[in-house]
């Protein structure tokens, strides 16, 4: 028998092991749910899988009586629009600030402590300020997410840029590169895959700030809906919404990973030059 640290699963075993926790949670849910429903058919806490299915159908396929909209899709579109806008803006800010601070010591000396301090401000604490300044519309939600994740991305990129071997920067200069061209042809391409990694890691936080902002002030969106139906203990809506959000977040993560692998084949080749 090999040591545990040396045991590696075959492909089939790996897939089975990966599915196992999901199946176990599902089974546990179904059994607890049917137990509670047997005791009280009106129990709302753990609705049966069939009533969750009915709720999904009602939200996703039947136009709302009040507005005539398919709420599920309206909420999804609103949330995704806010999230992608904010993440794109954050990535752009993070990239520019991170490269500037990482590659130019003069700028780093002036701005690093400032950026480090700003990134320590709890974004939720400034949410009221954002609402006061930017109003309750789309802008304040996007700004909250940007405020929450752009400094993190910037600091990550700054660190990554500083990790670029000094030799490469010197080498580029001996090949005739100006500061601008060192950044454009060496630092930027080396930072881009890191940017995707940083964005992937900050997606969780981005969703957190999105749901929080929507819960507090919105008229549509996935977070808004969850907090709205909470008043009626509508677990049959909340649970599928949570699963849907999880699926969306997971898909984004996978898409970004795929993009990184396709666009930067050299990044995933392992050997560090």
């Amino acid at each position: 028998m090999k040591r545990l640290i040396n045991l590696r699963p075959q492909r089939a075993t790996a897939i089975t092991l990966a599915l196992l926790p999901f199946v176990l949670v599902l089974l546990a849910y179904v059994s607890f749910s049917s137990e509670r429903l047997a005791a009280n058919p009106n129990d709302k806490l753990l609705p049966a899988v069939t009533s969750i299915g009915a709720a999904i159908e009602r939200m996703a396929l039947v136009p709302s009586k009040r507005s005539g909209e398919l709420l599920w899709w309206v909420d999804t579109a609103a949330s995704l629009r806010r999230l992608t806008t904010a993440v794109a803006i954050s990535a752009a800010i993070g990239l520019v600030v991170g490269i500037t601070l990482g590659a130019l010591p003069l700028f780093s000396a002036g701005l690093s402590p400032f950026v480090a301090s700003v990134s320590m401000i709890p974004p939720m604490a400034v949410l009221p300020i954002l609402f006061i300044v930017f109003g309750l519309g789309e802008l304040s939600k996007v700004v909250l997410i940007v405020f929450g994740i752009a400094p993190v991305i910037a600091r990550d990129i700054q660190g990554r840029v500083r990790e670029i071997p000094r030799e490469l920067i010197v080498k580029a200069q001996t090949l005739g590169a100006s500061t601008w061209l060192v950044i454009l042809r060496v630092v930027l391409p080396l930072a881009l895959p890191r940017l995707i990694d940083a964005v992937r890691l900050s997606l969780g936080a981005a969703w957190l700030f999105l749901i929080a902002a929507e819960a507090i002030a919105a008229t549509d969106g996935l977070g808004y809906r969850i907090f709205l139906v909470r008043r009626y203990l509508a677990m049959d809506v909340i649970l599928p919404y949570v699963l849907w959000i999880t699926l969306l977040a997971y898909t984004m993560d996978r898409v970004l990973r795929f993009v990184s692998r396709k666009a930067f084949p050299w990044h995933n080749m392992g050997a560090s030059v």
Partner: protein
Amino acid sequence: MSTTVPLIEARNVWKRYGDNVVLERLNLRIDAGEFCAVVGASGCGKTTFLRMVLGEEPPDKGAILLDGQPLRMEPDSERGIVFQRYSVFPHLTVLANVMLARELKESKLVGRLFGARRRAAEEEALTLLAQVGLASAQRRYPSELSGGMQQRLALAQSLIARPRILLLDEPFGALDPGIRHDMHVLVTDLWQAHKLTVLMITHDLKEGFALGTRLFVFDKVRADPQEPNAYGANVTYDLPLNRHSPVLAPA
């Protein structure tokens, strides 16, 4: 010593890091076309001297002159370099790595060439790649190459910038003995074909003797056993070597 102005001249150069005196009273002259090998124990200032010639470190005292003029204190395309590691760009293919110098020189705004100028650069890069024996690997990324191939690439990449001085910082230190010998043949060919002046750091004395037209030995002249860092190193031997014969025995 020649009476003309040497290509590189160090005049009474001192360098210290904190209490650690690395180099003291360093004087040397290197003429164009020489192949100078620098050997010495670890920490005797070989690499510090190379970094000063590169313009990465200023001397604390004294001066380093290029053509009799004070050296520009930052790296530029007069002085090419091949490091032991991290000498090539991991995000560029072999061909793009070699073309880079032309793109950087000819396109100051975007650093990229298009159309006929791009084809001209590609052609020159392919010629150089053929010289170093990498023509068939042009579409691969550096991480797909062996250590020896990466150093060949680094040489081709430096040479396309037409440096007057080629600095080699233990370039073959991480390679297998057989490959190292191939690299010695290659670097000799390139030195002659491109009429370069080479300054090579090595910790392999045999390599220094095999390649150089001149061998500098860096060592401490004075030593204080109570305070080993109090005195810096200097050139203790400056040996002119006769290398017109095929001295390249396998290492």
